[in-house]
């Protein structure tokens, strides 16, 4: 019955609208067991809506989701997926230990309560009332609750919102330690540094669809690259075939735009081998790339960059 070849998450063609707002627009996502994936995008990009659909908390208007080959509800019943939500989900009038006991009681088999409390780093405050816990402690409690069923997939929705720097670091250390045991982790965040520091793979979302998908290193390459622009006679377009490798080449109305990790080589080639003129070179930084790719007024679909396949 081992199903290691089954993806942890397979979401296909997800759409979700709220009234006139088309929050998720044809999102496809496949996550393999063991991956740690950051779902990175600005507020309102559709991250939470997507996570709700993956967890079966809301039904997609179109598309389908499977978790380890089951429906979201089926995966929850089997304890194969758990989530740490942004806010709420805690009863204020019971203790930390009671909260985890209660959650554990819902599953036919679960990890020992003190073990998950220890792993979330809250064993010493086990008898504290939830309402007396700080935001960071409550977040660790949500993490402990998520661990009781020993799920193969852990989903975290902006888990460090409202935490101070130290709390954030401690929280991620606990998650990271846990993920090293082979758990699949998907976390939504709008912090670039978090995605960079803790994910093996970054999925950039903007306005309800994926605009970039690759390893953290690939996203960084994109970020550290430069954009070369030049005017080039239409008759010389054929010469572009001999140009050094670039991430993207666009030619529109006599104007050439090249995104590259090696702008020197591209400029040298253009000046030596073509009649290119009015050459401009502009640097992208990580922040700019992120804003360009995910901002609401970002360039539309044609700017989409996918690393899968062609670049790897």
């Amino acid at each position: 019955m081992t199903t290691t070849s089954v993806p942890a998450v397979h979401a296909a063609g997800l759409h979700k609208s709220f009234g006139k707002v088309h929050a998720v627009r044809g999102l496809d996502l496949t996550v393999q067991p063991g991956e740690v994936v950051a779902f990175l995008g600005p507020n309102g990009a559709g991250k939470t809506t997507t996570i709700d659909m993956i967890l079966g908390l809301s039904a997609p208007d179109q598309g389908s989701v499977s978790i380890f080959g089951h429906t979201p509800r089926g995966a929850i019943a089997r304890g194969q997926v758990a989530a740490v939500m942004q806010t709420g989900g805690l009863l204020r009038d019971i203790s930390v230990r009671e909260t985890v006991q209660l959650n554990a009681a819902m599953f036919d088999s679960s990890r020992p309560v003190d073990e998950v409390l220890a792993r979330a780093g809250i064993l010493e405050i086990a008898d504290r009332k939830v309402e007396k816990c700080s935001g960071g402690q409550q977040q660790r409690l949500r993490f402990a609750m998520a661990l009781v069923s020993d799920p193969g997939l852990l989903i975290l929705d902006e888990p460090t919102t409202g935490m101070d720097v130290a709390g954030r670091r401690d929280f991620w250390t606990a998650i990271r330690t846990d993920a090293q045991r082979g758990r699949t982790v998907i976390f939504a965040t709008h912090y670039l540094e978090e995605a960079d520091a803790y994910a093996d793979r970054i999925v950039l979302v903007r306005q309800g669809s994926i605009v970039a998908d690759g390893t953290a290193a690939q996203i960084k390459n994109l970020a550290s690259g430069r954009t070369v622009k030049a005017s080039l006679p239409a008759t010389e377009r054929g010469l572009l075939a001999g140009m050094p490798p670039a991430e993207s080449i666009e030619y529109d109305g006599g104007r050439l735009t090249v995104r590259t990790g090696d702008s020197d080589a591209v400029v040298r080639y253009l000046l030596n081998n073509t009649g290119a003129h009015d050459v401009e070179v502009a640097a992208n930084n990580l922040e700019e790339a992120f804003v360009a790719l995910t901002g609401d007024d970002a360039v539309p679909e044609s700017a989409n960059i996918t690393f899968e396949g062609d670049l790897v």
Partner: protein
Amino acid sequence: MSTATAIQDRKPSAGGVNRTFLWIEIKRMLRNRRTIIFTVFMPAVFFFIFGLSNKDKLLPNGHSYGQYILISLTVYAAMTAATGAGSQVAVERAQGWSRQLRLTPLLPGAYIAVKALAALTLSLVAVVAQFVIGALAGVTMDGQTWLTAGLVAWLGSLVFAALGLFVGYLMPSQNVMQILGPALAILAMLGGLFMPIEIMGETFGNIAKFTPAYGIGQLARSPITGEFDWAWIVNVATWLAIFVAGAAMAFRRDTKRV
């Protein structure tokens, strides 16, 4: 610790009623000071105000006023307890707990069943507390009467557990009992729990027969009045059906949206 097993397929959990859940629910209710004030303290105060000075008087129909008011206020205590317990779903929805539970195997029906059982536990506490206070204050009844009246008040409170769930799913309020508390007092008065229906006048007496506390009150007092009317059973069954249907409808609306 093996997370390798996490990737293997597993059997789904049953998601039914479990003892830990029920026990923590009961503990939560008994620890809640406001709940205890509503279910034990207030009905006791009412008994001392309305009942104590008149306890040895007789009603126009010849029955003991003390017995009448004690049983009636016990029904009131049980219904307040059960409504309060049921309405806690409003607080749990507001805190996002219902949503959290949807990430566990727990079946919605099991959640409702636990809420109903917890409500019955609290209303049992209310009935026993009220009877103890009444007995200490000198109200005497034979054993059969204590038992029958107590059972009717206790089991009849299920009608109000359903009302609590209904309102709890309908309203987002954290303070749902601040609205339900006065509403229950009005229902109790109209149902003849604060004063005998016979002295309410004809108009109110007729209205009373269609209110949800009426049937349970009449049935609970039947051991002392020696009367029985199927209309009382119809009253209880009808209100139970209305509140259960309302709760089911509000619940479905809620899970679709959250």
